[in-house]
């Protein structure tokens, strides 16, 4: 439904995006994920026909976005970064205006608008002046504007930016509800957003694609880890853990209780969980806890866009301030395991400095 091939755009000598290539299948939701300034908005604007590309092609519903601009415009709904609203209009009046300029037939307008209002939970606000609406409602009017003409392709630039947690959940559900009949591409710098709403994620950084995959695969790619709590000789425990096939890194953590030692494991390949338990027990060590911690998308993101580190300290991933659903997961995921190479187990270390990360994390995009 959307085909982007070697798309580049530069403003003067500044390169905004370079050689982007990706597809969005019909009915799919693709998330365009990247830090601020990565080129997300530029990409969206090119797809919507608002900006011409410097080179490369973008096709929406089999029409080239620049050459067949009118044909594309008839088939897209577009929510720009700032919702395009006329403050002096009522919600309903505005949607009627949009329906008219988007070419909705006169007989269908009332029904389409009622449906859009219903979908965006705006029915009670239909007669309210847009000027008087709060940010969250305005964002919803922006969404209603993008779907009022029932377009096959919907382009959403940061659809949840600036919303409160409840509204974010509403908007996500709304977007998920649109999938299937509509092809959706949305951009965000909020990580949980893509894992919750998108079928596939394209991560872009500094105008280039660093990865495209399902959120699950991306997380799997970074590898899984385990946390184990063991009673007994820590040196022996370390040796045993290192001997388990599939365990690539073992990292001692501070003691939780007298005589109990905690280790963070990074594993790969077939799930070595049961092997870890078996080996530990066979070695005569006490196993108190064995818990699996899945790599979060934050890890993937930071892994892939590690050059951004100085700008995005790991203590504050961009998502940290928004999502209550994920707050529970936050502390775990922000604590990036420090890899310790196998041959030389070192002392306990608490440092999670970004510099360390840059020095030690393998960079995936180089």
């Amino acid at each position, binding site marked *: 439904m959307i085909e982007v091939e070697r798309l580049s755009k530069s403003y003067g000598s*500044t390169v905004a995006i370079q050689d982007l290539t990706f597809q969005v299948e019909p009915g799919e939701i693709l998330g365009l994920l990247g830090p601020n300034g990565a080129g997300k908005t530029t990409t969206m604007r090119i797809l*919507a026909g608002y*900006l011409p590309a410097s080179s490369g092609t973008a096709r929406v519903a089999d029409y080239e976005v620049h050459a067949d601009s009118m044909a594309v415009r008839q088939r897209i709904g*577009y929510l*720009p970064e700032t919702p395009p609203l006329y403050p*002096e209009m009522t919600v309903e*009046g505005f949607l009627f*205006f949009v329906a008219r*300029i988007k*070419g909705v037939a006169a007989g269908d307008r009332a029904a389409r608008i009622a449906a859009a209002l219903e979908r965006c939970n705006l029915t009670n606000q239909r007669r309210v002046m847009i000027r008087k609406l709060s940010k969250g409602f305005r964002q919803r009017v922006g969404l209603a504007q993008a779907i009022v003409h029932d377009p096959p392709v919907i382009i959403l630039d940061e659809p949840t930016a600036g919303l409160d947690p409840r509204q974010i959940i509403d908007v996500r559900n709304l977007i998920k509800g649109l999938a299937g009949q509509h092809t959706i591409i949305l951009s965000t710098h909020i990580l949980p957003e893509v894992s919750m709403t998108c079928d596939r994620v394209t991560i872009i950084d500094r105008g280039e694609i660093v990865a495209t995959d399902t959120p699950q695969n991306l997380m799997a790619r970074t590898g899984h880890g385990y946390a184990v709590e063991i009673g007994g000789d820590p040196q022996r425990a370390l040796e045993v853990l290192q001997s388990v096939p599939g365990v690539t890194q073992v990292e001692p953590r501070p003691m939780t209780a007298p005589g109990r030692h905690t280790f963070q494991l990074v594993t790969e390949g077939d799930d070595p969980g049961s092997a870890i338990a078996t080996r530990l027990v066979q070695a005569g060590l006490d196993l108190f806890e064995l818990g699996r911690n899945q790599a979060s998308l934050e890890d993937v993101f930071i892994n892939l866009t590690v050059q951004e580190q100085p700008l995005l300290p790991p203590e504050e991933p961009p998502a940290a301030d928004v999502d209550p659903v994920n707050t529970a997961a936050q502390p775990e995921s922000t604590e990036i395991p420090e890899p310790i190479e196998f041959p030389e187990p070192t002392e306990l270390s608490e440092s999670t400095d970004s510099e360390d990360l840059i020095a030690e994390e393998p960079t995936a995009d180089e």
Partner: protein
Amino acid sequence: MNRARILLTNILAIYRRELQSYFFSPLAYLIAAVFWLIGGFFLVAILFSQGGLIAQVATAESMGAVPPIDLPYQFLQYYLDVLGALSLFVLPMLSMGLYADERKQGTLELLATSPVTNWAVALGKLLGVVTFYITMLLPLLLSEAIALSASEPPLDPAIMLMGHAGLVLLATSVLSLGMFVSSLTASTVLAAILTFGLVLLLWVIDAIGNGLPGAWGDAVGYLSLLTHYTDFVQGVFDSSGLILFLSYIVLGLFLTAQSIETLRFQRN
């Protein structure tokens, strides 16, 4: 056929929205109020002040002036001159927000990604603002009609029609050019100032033309809004005046559509 209907729907949608925005804008009411106040003041001053027309005519007649003075015609000329000059100040304020506001609100992004051509948007907007200007004129026209209805013999309706057609043509030309200026900037204040400067230049350009020698001077002088407006007000139909006004209107529309199109290429 179907295409034409869609186009008409689009223009009408833009037109209605634009017109509505004036009726919801406090600034537009303020502009209208000042326009009415000054226009009404001049209406009274032209007719009834000490040096006003009625007093002048009375003096002239008492001295046995021959031929008698056509008072309604004189009044209409003075009054339309005043309205024309007054409009020069008011029109840039009406046109300043046409595109600058769209840019500021980000709604230009909506229009530019909707299946509407740039010139349909421009035309709808121009019609909207011209309608608002005509609405602004109505109370003044009403008082003018009351004043003229007292004249005996009545004024030739053709002359009245010509004068007011001239005023609307003048206003549409200025608004069309003002719309283009507004499409160049996101600042309404800047748009108003630039438009006012441009209009002032076109108003007095015949004076500049007189200073230039030969054909150049004539050509420049021909561009003057004032000369052609005066022709209309005097009831002299001059097709070159009509053509000039229409040219300004079309030029404004064309440049607006072009500037919005160009904007897509240089935006950053």
